[in-house]
């Protein structure tokens, strides 16, 4: 391809005192990529049962200034969202992605708009793909029904998370994603790991929330054993 490319790769090989890797050496590295072995994963989250893992997630997310509301089932989500917005003195409106299996119609006071977030949207409502208990981190992926702008443009970000989506580590999250991508045949353009709301410490190292992204991150955790 490009001249610069050949020169850079040539310079690397000269410095490493060898030619391009081939044969067994290349096969070994290809195998490493295909197998993607795990490195050390902290015990903090891996040794826990389901309940404790969810508790750890909630604790860590709250430590990062997210708020969490637990509901029993999907049918309770619309009321929980409406209640949160009322509590924040926000209009009951949101730009929404995914979450088709939630009976929104039964809470007529909530005005929902599908599609990417517009600059004037105050609230973005999106589904989690997974959640990482280790650090209280949400994992969201972009896709046809889940535009990334929902996660960053609105001032308030509400994420619906189901209990079975809470995993121990980032590695568990990646494995879920690999499985999903193998099914759909497509790797998402954007994967967001989100830990608490936007913040900055750039002026005098004083932490302020809501630098450029959402000022508030609210998680509705569907914690009942039966979602329905």
């Amino acid at each position, binding site marked *: 391809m490009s001249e610069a490319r050949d020169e850079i790769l040539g310079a*690397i090989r000269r410095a490493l005192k060898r030619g391009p890797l081939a044969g067994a050496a290349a096969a070994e590295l290809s195998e490493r990529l295909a197998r993607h072995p795990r490195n050390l994963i902290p015990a903090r989250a891996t040794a826990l049962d389901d309940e404790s893992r969810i508790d750890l997630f909630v604790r860590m997310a709250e430590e990062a200034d997210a708020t969490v509301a637990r509901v029993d089932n999907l049918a309770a989500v619309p009321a929980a969202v409406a209640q949160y917005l009322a509590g924040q003195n926000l209009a009951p409106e949101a730009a929404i992605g995914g979450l088709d299996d939630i009976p929104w119609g039964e809470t007529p006071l909530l005005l929902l708009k599908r599609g990417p977030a517009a600059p004037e949207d105050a609230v973005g409502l999106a589904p989690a793909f997974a959640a990482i208990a280790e650090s209280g981190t949400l994992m969201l992926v972009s896709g046809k029904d889940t535009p990334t702008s929902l996660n*960053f443009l609105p001032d308030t970000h509400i994420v619906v998370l189901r209990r079975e989506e809470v995993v121990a580590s980032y590695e568990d999250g990646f494995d879920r994603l690999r499985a999903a991508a193998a099914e759909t045949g497509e790797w998402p353009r954007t*994967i967001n*790991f989100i830990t608490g709301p936007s913040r900055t410490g750039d002026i005098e190292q004083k932490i302020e929330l809501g630098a450029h992204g959402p000022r508030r991150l609210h998680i509705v955790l569907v914690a009942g054993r039966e979602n329905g």
Partner: protein
Amino acid sequence: MQLQARDFPQNARAALGEERLQRALSRAPSGFALKRAIAVERLPEFESLRERGRAIKDETLAHLDFYLERYEENVVASGGKVHWAKTAEEARQAVLRICRSVGAKSVTKGKSMVGEEVGLNACLEANGITPIETDLGEYIIQLRGEPPSHIIAPAIHLVKEDVAESFRRAHDRLDAARSLEEVRQLCAEARAVLRPLFLAADVGITGANFLVAETGSSIIVTNEGNGDLTQLLPRVHIVMASLEKVVPTLEDAATLLRLLARSASGQEFSAYTTLSTGPRRAGDEDGPEEYHVILLDNGRSALLGGEFQDMLRCIRCAACLNHCPVYGAVGGHAYGSVYPGPMGAVLSPALFGLEGSAHLPNASTFCGRCESVCPVKIPLPKMMRHWREREFERRLGPRPYRVGLQLWAFLALRPALYHAVFGLLARLLGWAGAGRGRFRALPFLSGWTGARDMPAPEGKTFHRLWTERRRAR
């Protein structure tokens, strides 16, 4: 405005006398360093992770050509494009070409040290394209026409009054009577001013903390969300990254991410860690239509296989800056380099030449804190020593310094003469300083005695004590 590395001694002296700078620097001990210590304490596996992080980087560097080719293959497979750049100039030209191809007028930027390294903003401006820094710290220093003074907190040298003054000057259409006393008000104003600029930009340029060979993804780690808006809203996303940012797999990235946030700001995880792979997919309703990666060498391939290869493990967390007593005293601008502090003292001579940066490897007390907090265990003091050796070999230091070292080396290679000369010197100084017990000034040593007294030698020399003790056994 911009200070030079060759003037480090003068820059440092001036920095020590700047009241606002010293006030800003005095906040550091209770900031990053303390938060890091707490985060490390909470994770029993931290030490093992450092070892693992080091191993991942070493393995990657040993097979860098292979992983870069794989990375490129996967970027292309996901619809993106990789532009290889040997030099800063090639990187700037590649960015310009892409910007021109879409007729870009304004460009938003996430914080990128590689962008700083290649001097991208000046190049864009010279070509009629407006670069807008969107990281709050970068935005502030862009308004002030200053370079960053820290690799993760670019405006750490400023106090809020400095920022308020800059905002009043730059945002002159806003109500002049508004209050800007609180940090909160400053943040809110920057957010409000920047939001429409995010929406209007034609191209978004970010750096990358990691590139993943397995998937062809670029990863950015931020807290503000500015990097995400930058790579999401414009039609074109350009990633600027240097070669050594590549890691083999997502698992390897996960290990390094556990080290990065804790080492940098003491967070368990930064607010936003985002993987971008190619442009928007067919069904996506947002995201960029084009995805480009500028892969910059700029002297890095020459470090492989040599005594500075370990520096390529650096993940730019800034822990070495945050724990360096010299950085803590003079701040980042005194170094006169894009990369200040201990990591800069090693990297700057490699990237920009030893001639202009020879002072930087000397700007260290060798206390070793930098190496002890480095998440990938880079032997920074050892490498600064290598640069000092080269400085001496290439006769770059001041003449008295070189003559002094030569004289000392001459004596050190002749132990009998060494003991005789220093024994005599010690007795002489002991006799001369017997009354006061210390010296306020000594010939040829004004640099040392200028700031402290030199204690007068007492009793016997170390060598004599050592010999006597061995005999006594």
